[in-house]
């Protein structure tokens, strides 16, 4: 019985996503009809075509890809460096601890408080609607997370291994690059994915700091929602395009994702 209940729960849970994908494939007439059609007579990609032709889907998609890839890469790189410093360079210990707590506490910072001055400063620096400005601003979200995650991943690597490298004369930087990084590959992948997820789906910063050249997918999606009657078809298609890559990656790399999400909250 509990099994049946859980299956139903999972089905209900999947329904919003299912409905979005279904709507994106329906014809207009099947969307704006009562009662709603669960099994449309025909499906097609016309809303996707419209997105490409009339809504600049591709520029938004490319912009999202650039910003996400760059941001996740920078956050993971700097986060790994910092985490190595905090975990393996034990001098001075108390400073390390305070720094770690400080980084963790940054996750509480409301983005809106940073955004208002950013809008002003980026304006002065001509960084509004530039990839550089957007990527720079996007460090805000993934870097504290990346430092925190990598700290936990790196501290799970036995100290004897890194110490052995040191004894053989490797510098800390060489140790990190040649010894730690290969061992921490799953951790790096997890950090990269979770960082990418934060940036790919972010809307508030993008709505203010990007412009016609650099607008990302969430900006495109939110742009559909006027106060007038909504055009659900293209909106659902844009939502599907936004969700699909992330969900695919998440499902494929499920083991890593679950490890990353539970990291720090579940002690071995």
């Amino acid at each position: 019985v509990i099994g049946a209940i859980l299956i139903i729960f999972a089905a209900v849970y999947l329904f919003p996503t299912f409905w979005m994908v279904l709507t994106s494939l329906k014809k207009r007439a099947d969307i704006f009809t009562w009662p709603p059609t669960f099994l449309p007579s025909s499906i097609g990609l016309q809303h996707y075509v419209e997105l490409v032709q009339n809504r600049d889907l591709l520029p938004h998609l490319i912009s999202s890809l650039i910003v996400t890839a760059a941001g996740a890469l920078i956050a993971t790189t700097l986060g790994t460096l910092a985490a190595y410093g905090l975990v393996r360079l034990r001098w001075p210990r108390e400073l390390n601890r305070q720094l770690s707590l400080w980084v963790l506490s940054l996750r509480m910072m409301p983005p809106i408080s940073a955004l208002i001055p950013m809008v002003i400063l980026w304006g002065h620096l001509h960084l509004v609607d530039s990839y550089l400005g957007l990527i720079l601003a996007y460090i805000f979200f993934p870097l504290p997370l990346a430092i925190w995650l990598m700290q936990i991943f790196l501290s799970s690597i036995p100290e004897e291994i890194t110490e052995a490298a040191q004894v053989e004369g490797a510098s800390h930087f060489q140790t990190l690059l040649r010894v730690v990084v290969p061992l921490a590959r799953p951790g790096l992948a997890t950090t990269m994915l979770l960082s990418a997820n934060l940036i790919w789906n972010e809307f508030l910063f993008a709505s203010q700091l990007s412009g016609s050249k650099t607008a990302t997918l969430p900006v495109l999606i939110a742009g559909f929602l006027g106060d007038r009657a909504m055009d659900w078809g293209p909106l659902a298609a844009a939502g599907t395009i936004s969700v699909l890559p992330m969900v695919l990656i998440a499902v494929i790399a499920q083991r890593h994702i679950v490890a990353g999400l539970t990291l720090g909250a579940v002690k071995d």
Partner: protein
Amino acid sequence: VGEPVSVSRLPRNLSRLSKGAEHLLFVGPAVFLLLAIVIFPLVYTFVASLYNWDLGQMLDFVGFGNYLNQFRDPNFWLAMFVTLQMTVLSVGLEFVIGLGLAILVNRELRALQPVIRTALLIPLFTAPVVVGSTFRMLLDPQFGVLQFVFNIRGFAPTATDPFALLTVVAGDVWQWTPFMFIIFLAALQGVPRDTIEAARVDGASGWQQTRFVLLPQIAYAIVVALLLRLMDALKIFDVIVTLTRGGPGRSTEDATFAIYRLGLENFYTGDAAAFSWILVVILSVLVGILFRQIHGRYKLV
């Protein structure tokens, strides 16, 4: 007598210095960026909050006048109250559903776990603007599928007072319950089976086993999950923008949305900055207290 000591101390100090420099090389870039992107804007906001600064023009120094204005403004208190309601309802529901589900799945259905976990991963990787717009589509007064299921055609919950806030909560709960579930399930799987078994043999009921044997062993996971969710739920924005736009009236304007309106739509930069700082101080105190409490009992870092 002092001479040899200071000489022998010198190289040690030097090596300490170079160690410090090395430390800086690793930690420095990240800390520098965080200072530039997080802390500097915060300082800038504080300066802005002391000025009468409207429509892009920095007018005159008003000290804490903007703060007083906020405290006198009923909209400020409303936004605070909305934030509180949304946070408590969202995190509360996410916790209860996530924990209940994790306990059920952990106890009964090892075989179904991968299926359910996969289904629950989807919302976590969905953009909040997509969550908001999908829920808006599901709840469309004219053609919404939920209007059909519940036979309420013509009713617009996203534009009706007590319901609008609940739709925002529903979006957040849909998205984030899986986070709680995944953490709790992993924590529960780490609990040794024999402790439960022992409690059962001793005659503990199902509830007693859960409450006094299972939950204490995953207390750390519960605390961390609640803390992480709390920090995020206090700043809901995207779902509100796409689902209710703060309406009807201001009934779904939380603090973040109110600051956004004030500073980025109406360009009262000074007032928005003051509101921001009030929010930052409240969050810092709140999270600071929680950190201290938690850190005393469990080591967070």
